[in-house]
C-alpha cells in the first residue's frame, strides 16, 4: 500500500447542507429568510398514532352500508344561527393578498360543493369569495384590513384571530411586490409598500377585554353569528380556557406545522408547539370547564388526509381545518410547472417563496397573468373531490372502530408509535398500557 488510508469525507449533522446554505445566504444579504408554509422539520405528528380497529370487544360497522355521520354544528353556545357543516373539515383563513382572487374563489367553490365552510383572511372579504362560499367565516384580525360592518353582517361566522400556529406572537408582512391596486385599496394603503399586519389587536389586550370585544361583535351582528377564537399552538390549555371564558362559541387551535403566507423561517421553525401536542391540552381545558362539545374545537396545522382527520377527532376535536393541503388540491406545487419552479431556483414540492408573488401555479400571487392560470371552477372541483376523499377515509376508519358518527371516535381507539407521541396525545405506547406523563405502569 503506497497511500495513507483516508477517512470518508463526513458532513456535520449540526452544520448540515441546509444550515451552511442559510449562513451563506444571511451573510450575503443581511436579511433573515422569509418564506411561506409551515414548519418543515420532522415533528411528532398524527402519523405517530395508530387506530386499533375493531376486535372481539368492539364490533365494526359495515362500510358504505351502515351509517357513519360526519356533520358538525358550530355555534350552539350563544349564536342564534349556528352553522351546520356536512363534513368535519373546514377551509382555513388565507388572505386575499397572499392568494389571488381566483384562488379565493376556488376555495369557496370547493368548500361549498363539499358542504363545508371557508374563511376570509387578512385583507378582508372579496365578493368572489362571498359569492361562491355557502358558509363563510369572516376573520377579525389585529390589522383590521378591510374590516367593515357590512361584511361582518354578510358573514356566517366571525373568527377573532389571536394567533397562528406558524407564528404565535407574530404579526404578518405582505411585501410590496404583492400589493396590487385592488389589494392596496382594500387595505387603505398605498400600492407597492410593505404592509405590516399587527401582532396585537389595537383595541383590546387580555381575556377580560376579549370578552367585551366578543360582546361588541355579537351586539353589532344581533347575536346571530357563531364567534370563533383562533390561537396559535402556544399555550393550548390556557388559551382554550380563556377563549371559553371570554365567550367564544368555538376555539381554533393551530399547531406549528400550520402554514402561513409569509413569515421569518426562524419563527416558523422555532416558536410554538406541534399540532399533536396541542390537541389534548385544548380538549382537557374544555372538559375541565364542562364545555367539551358545547364549545366546538377546530384543530389545524399539517392535516393531510382522512387519517389525520380521524385522529384529531378521536383526540377530542370537533373538526379540523386545512390550509396548505387545500392549496395543493387546487394545484399548488404541481410537478406540471416543474420547469418554472426550476427557473425560480426550486422544485415542485419545495416552493415556498410565496411572498414574492411569482407562483407558477397562479395561487400565491397577484400577478394577473399567473393568476389567470388557475381556473376557479376546475380548481374548486378538485378541492371538493379531495375533501370528499378525506371524509370517506375518516368514515372508513370510524366504521372500522365501530362508530356511527366520526365524533364517536375516542382516545381509547388509539395507540402511539413513539414515547413522545404517547405523552403528547395522552394515549398508550403501542403494545403497552403506558401513557408517559400520566403515571400508570407497563
Amino acid at each position, binding site marked *: 500500500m503506497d497511500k495513507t488510508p483516508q477517512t470518508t469525507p463526513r458532513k456535520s449533522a449540526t452544520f448540515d447542507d441546509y444550515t451552511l446554505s442559510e449562513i451563506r445566504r444571511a451573510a450575503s*444579504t*443581511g*436579511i433573515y429568510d422569509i418564506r411561506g408554509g409551515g414548519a418543515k422539520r420532522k415533528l411528532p405528528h398524527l402519523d405517530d398514532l395508530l387506530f386499533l380497529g375493531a376486535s372481539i370487544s368492539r364490533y365494526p360497522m359495515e362500510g358504505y352500508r351502515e351509517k357513519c355521520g360526519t356533520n358538525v354544528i358550530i355555534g350552539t353556545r350563544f349564536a342564534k344561527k349556528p352553522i351546520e357543516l356536512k363534513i368535519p373539515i373546514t377551509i382555513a383563513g388565507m388572505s386575499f393578498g397572499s392568494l389571488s382572487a381566483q384562488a379565493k374563489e376556488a376555495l369557496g367553490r370547493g368548500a361549498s360543493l363539499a358542504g363545508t365552510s371557508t374563511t376570509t383572511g387578512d385583507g378582508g372579504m372579496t365578493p368572489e369569495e362571498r359569492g361562491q362560499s355557502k358558509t363563510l367565516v369572516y376573520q377579525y384580525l389585529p*390589522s*383590521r384590513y378591510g*374590516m*367593515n*360592518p357590512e361584511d*361582518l353582517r354578510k358573514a356566517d361566522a366571525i373568527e377573532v384571530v389571536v394567533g397562528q400556529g406558524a407564528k404565535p406572537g407574530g404579526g404578518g*408582512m405582505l*411585501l*410590496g411586490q404583492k400589493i396590487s391596486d385592488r389589494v392596496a385599496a382594500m*387595505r*387603505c*394603503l*398605498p400600492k407597492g*409598500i*410593505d404592509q*405590516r399586519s*399587527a401582532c396585537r389587536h*389595537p*383595541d*383590546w389586550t387580555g381575556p377580560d*377585554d376579549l370578552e*367585551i*370585544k366578543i*360582546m*361588541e361583535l355579537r*351586539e*353589532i*351582528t*344581533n*347575536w346571530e353569528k357563531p364567534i370563533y377564537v383562533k390561537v396559535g399552538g402556544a399555550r393550548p390549555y390556557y388559551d382554550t380556557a380563556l377563549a371559553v371564558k371570554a365567550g367564544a362559541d368555538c376555539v381554533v387551535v393551530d399547531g406549528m406545522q400550520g402554514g402561513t403566507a409569509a413569515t421569518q423561517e426562524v419563527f416558523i421553525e422555532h416558536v410554538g408547539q406541534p399540532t399533536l401536542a396541542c390537541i389534548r391540552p385544548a380538549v382537557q381545558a374544555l372538559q375541565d370547564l364542562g364545555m367539551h362539545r358545547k364549545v366546538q374545537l377546530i384543530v389545524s396545522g399539517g392535516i393531510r388526509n382522512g387519517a389525520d382527520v380521524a385522529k384529531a377527532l378521536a383526540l377530542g376535536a370537533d373538526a379540523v381545518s386545512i390550509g396548505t393541503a387545500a392549496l395543493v388540491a387546487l394545484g399548488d406545487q404541481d410537478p406540471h410547472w416543474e420547469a418554472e419552479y426550476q427557473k425560480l431556483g426550486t422544485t415542485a414540492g419545495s416552493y415556498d417563496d410565496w411572498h414574492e408573488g411569482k407562483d407558477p401555479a397562479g395561487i400565491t400571487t397577484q400577478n394577473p397573468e399567473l393568476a389567470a392560470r388557475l381556473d376557479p371552477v376546475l380548481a374548486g372541483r378538485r378541492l371538493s373531490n379531495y375533501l370528499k376523499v378525506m371524509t370517506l377515509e375518516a368514515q372508513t376508519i370510524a366504521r372500522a372502530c365501530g362508530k356511527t358518527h366520526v365524533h364517536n371516535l375516542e382516545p381509547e381507539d388509539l395507540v402511539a408509535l413513539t414515547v413522545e407521541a404517547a405523552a403528547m396525545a395522552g394515549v398508550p405506547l403501542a403494545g403497552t398500557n403506558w401513557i408517559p406523563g400520566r403515571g400508570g405502569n407497563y
Partner: protein
Amino acid sequence: MIEFDLEKEGVRGLNSRLQALAPDTNERKWSVLNPMGAHAIAVGLTQPITVEVQGHAGFYCGGMNQHAEVIVNGHAGPGVAENMMSGIVRVKGNASQSAGATGNGGLLIIEGDASSRCGISMKGIDIVVGGSVGHMSAFMAQRGNLVVCGDAGEALGDSIYEARLYVRGKVQDLGTDCIEKEVKPEHLEDLARLLERAQIKADPKSFRRYGSARKLYNFNVDHADAY
C-alpha cells in the same frame, strides 16, 4: 326625543331597537339614560339618527358606526368609535385608550383628553381632540386626520403610513419614521374645516403638522435598528 333607560332594558335592548330602525324612521332622536359605563352602547348603527348617552360609556361606544351621530355626555372607555365607517361620535368628556382605532371614516370628536393609542391604525377617520393625547397615538395610522389641540405624548405617529397629524401643543417625541412636515394652504383648509365641524375654537395656523418620512415603507436591513 325618545328616552331609553339602559339600566332597565339593557344594551341588547338598546342596540336591537336602534339597529332595527328603517331608513325613513321618524324615531331620530334618542336619549340613553343611566348608561353607567356599560360596554358596546350604540354599536353597529346604520341610520342617520342621533343618540345621546347621558353619562359615561364603557368600551367601544359607537363601534363600527355608519351614518349615526352618537354623543356621550360624559367620558368614554377604550375603543370609542372603533372602526367607525361614517357619521359622528362626540365625547364631551375624556376618552380612554385606542379612541377611533382602525376607523375608516366619519368624525370622532373628543372634547377632553384622549389616552394612549388614540387613532391607532386609523384608516380614513378624522379625529379631533380638544385636549391632549397619550403615548403611541396614531401608531401605524394609515389614512385620515388626527387633530390634537393640546399636547401629544411619547412616540406620536410611530410607524405611520399616510395619515396626517396636527398638534397645537407640545409633542413629547415622535415615533419611528414620523417627522414634522410643512403646513401648506391645503392643510390649513383641512384644519379649518375639521375644527369647524368639531365646533372647537382654535386657530388653524397655530398647529404643526406631522406625517410619515416614508423611509420604512419597504424593508431595508440597514434600517433594522430604527425600530
